């Protein structure tokens, strides 16, 4: 991603279901929602457990680490907040849930499925931080597997 003072990333306001999640980002903490009844971990945060239907859910701190499940290099930016090419990825956290993110801190050509990544934070003007991921030091995935 470019560090130019580009227009900010499109980001809708937090709501009553997601406020706790976004508040954690202000402390640079990546959390997932866990069901108090059945223990299921899920992302994005919502008012119901998708496994058991429970409505008592808590935020649990993650390690902020995971693996690239799949990715795409976008070559046409959808709006001026983005400078192509950049990587959109689905990262599976060690705790299980998958989240969409960008892979930053490496060339787009170096992103691979299976790459081990950890969270970094990009500040948003409203004080929230947007989690993006970068390759973990010394563990640049499995480039030989292609």
């Amino acid at each position, binding site marked *: 991603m470019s560090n130019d003072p580009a227009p900010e990333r499109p980001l809708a306001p937090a709501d009553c279901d997601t406020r706790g999640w976004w508040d954690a980002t202000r402390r640079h903490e990546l959390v997932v929602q866990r069901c108090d009844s059945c223990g299921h971990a899920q992302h994005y945060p919502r008012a119901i457990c998708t496994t058991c239907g429970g409505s008592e859910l808590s935020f649990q701190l993650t390690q902020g680490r995971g693996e690239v499940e799949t990715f*795409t290099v976008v070559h*046409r930016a*959808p709006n001026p907040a983005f400078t192509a090419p950049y990587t959109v990825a689905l990262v599976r956290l060690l705790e299980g849930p998958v989240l969409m993110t960008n892979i930053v801190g490496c060339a787009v050509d170096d992103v691979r499925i299976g790459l081990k990544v950890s969270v970094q934070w990009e500040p948003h003007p409203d004080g929230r931080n947007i989690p*993006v991921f970068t390759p973990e030091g010394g563990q640049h995935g499995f480039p030989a597997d*292609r």
Partner: protein
Amino acid sequence: MADGVAVVGVAESDLGITDQTILGLQAQAISRALADAGLSLSDVDGLATNGAARFSTAQVAEYVGLRPTWTDSTAAGGSSYEIFLGHAVDAINAGRCKVVVISYGSNQRSARSRSLAGVAEAHLPDQQFEAPYGPLYPISLYAMAAQRYLHEYGATSQQLAEVAVAARAWALLNPKAFRYDAGPLDVDDVLSSTMVSSPLHVLDCCLVTDGGGAIVVTSLERARELRDDPVVVRGWGECTTSSSMAQVPDLLVPGAAVSGQRALTDAGLSVDDIDVVEIYDSFSINVLLSLEALGFCGRGQAASFVQGGRIRPGGGLALNTSGGGLSYCHPGMFGLLLLVEAVRQLRGECAERQVPGACTALVHATGGALSTHATVVLGVDR
């Protein structure tokens, strides 16, 4: 199916670049389909449509002068029309209505109304958890499915490109295809076309055109009075799996596995019995995923299954015989035109691209970002 429902009229609106309105294209398609059926607006008591307005059935009904007593405006993207047909079968069998028109129209190319980012609804979770990362909607999701497919199965972009190459070969036989005069494609053309969202090149992606269509559905009993070649709905199934891009349960096994099985079971048929296959090809990868999920080949085998000319004209599997969304027409949502082509093939009206002796057709459509999935099995009468 209990009593039997048939398609008695089909039509396209004008296609391509029309400089017409959405409602005008809808009216054109509806008029043509009713004429094809030998019916008029006064015979119609059911209407299913979407994409025309926030209240699509009300708007289209008002525009053409209908007061339907059965409507459906299920919003399931490109698969809505297969779902409409299934719902219409149930409604007609249950006696809720007698003659249903299913219609669609879009002027997206003339109106330049399509955005790479898709349509944002600020209250939805993806605007907090996906939009900040700049995916193209829905291209980037299909691209991520393709990337995973290539990785998991050791398939190649060359193999993927064959889907677009074959679609073009069919389009060259269809005078209504947007690429009818464009000449053949080869794999290198696809691979050297602009990369949009890797591994998908622009030629792995469907066209952006205007277009629309309509079909007319009624009881098989009535259908037999109207024409001697009604096309019977033998079975159908639907499956909704997810909405946003990061929530797809399995990128490599779409809901086609569920909807297809249901439709084939209804029909009492297996994929080996199917003569013509129309699969929603918004992106080349979608065809491979659908072929596997529907059971035309095993998991991970579609990339090699489509090689060797198998899905080109004259090959072993008559697939996307109109030229598909990749080379014929893709007016935002393509599901209705899949049905139109399947019915015409079963009536033997397809001239140069006619599949000889076609008696059964399977139509499978996908909507959204691998979100909604619907399958219909059609057959000639008896």
